[in-house]
């Protein structure tokens, strides 16, 4: 995965999160909505930092970490439309964010 592909994958994840955040059913659960919204803001900041980060995309560590992100995104795709699984959605997004933090830390 290249840096641009990772930025795109995070962008697609943000779009899916936005669809969830615009769902009136989630908006009727203010605490849960706020939790997902806070994660959206964090992931958004990470994507912005990623655009400007110096990353060695051919590095094995980067490829290993993006592999973890791809796996988490795949799992998120299966549950993101199911608000009954909101805890799993939140956990999966947290996993993506944590791996992104590692990537950004290595790039800093």
């Amino acid at each position, binding site marked *: 995965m290249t840096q641009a592909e990772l930025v795109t994958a995070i962008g697609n994840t943000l779009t899916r999160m936005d669809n969830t955040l*615009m769902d009136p059913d989630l908006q009727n659960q203010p605490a849960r909505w706020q939790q997902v919204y806070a994660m959206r803001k964090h992931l958004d900041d990470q*994507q912005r930092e990623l655009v400007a980060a110096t990353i060695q995309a051919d590095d094995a560590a980067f490829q290993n970490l993006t592999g973890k992100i791809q796996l988490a995104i795949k799992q998120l795709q299966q549950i993101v439309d199911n608000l009954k699984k909101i805890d799993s959605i939140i956990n999966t997004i947290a996993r993506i964010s944590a791996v992104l933090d590692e990537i950004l830390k290595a790039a800093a």
Partner: protein
Amino acid sequence: MTIRQQLRAHRRTLPALLILFFLVGCVPDQDYTPVITQFQQSSATLAQAFETLLANANLVEYEHYIDTQAFDHARLTPTEIDTRAIITPEELKLRSDAILALAQYTTALATLAQGKHEAQIVEDADAASTSFSTLATDAQTAAAGHHLIPATADYAGPISDAAAAAGIILGLIERHRTHKEIHDSIEKNDPALTALFNLLGSESQAIYERQKSTQSAQGVLLFTSYNREIAQPTPDKEYLLQLSDRIKQFRRAQALVAQSNPAPAIAAFKKSHDALIAVILAPKDAKPKSLAALIASVQSFAAEVQPLAAGVQATGTTH
């Protein structure tokens, strides 16, 4: 003969004529002109759209930050807003000049392939040569100076490689060297431009993704504000109407952002450039096939660039 019959007859005759041209291996000069003109127009449009996209990059981040802070009832300061910039004016200029230099270089090759008047060939080669020379100097300055995108430091390499390669080819054209010398030089040096095409393509994809994400976030803020307001015991009708207007604008902009990704147009630009090189390097008997590939590539390029230009221009004013 009715008009419909005449049209049918033309439809039958035109492909037959084209097949005849290809069979006899004849590539008349006038065959090049429309495709080269279309290529030149498309590359000029791409350069303009790319510049607008980059110019919007910071604006989009500022507005996204302002909207989010307002929604969160959080403090706003001009300094904080400015920290959201992702590109400096120098970085922006470097990237749009790179597209322009590539467009001028490819135009110079197109003029050469077209077999236009010598004065025009030299004039186009001179223009491209000057652009690449300025670009190489600017890349060195930008790499040494303040930059927000760390990759700017890495730009100097592909730019100086591309400038050196294009300089050798264009120099031969300017000095009226033999067809064979120019031909050999293109074959040897032109591949050095690939890294610059690739760099511009991947970076513009990332910048576009930010535009898409910030635009999508705007939808969350608008729909949530609207739904929260209607849940109030006495909703403010005027506020709801303002929000509904912004939701309509948001939905229009959403469709435009979807067509504002410059990466496929840059890839199509490179494909056209490669097809043009193939026409120049092809032996005489293979020219018709190469020309057909060039026509197809340039048509795809034009098809990518037109909606991009409209989308980028419109999102700059509606985001």
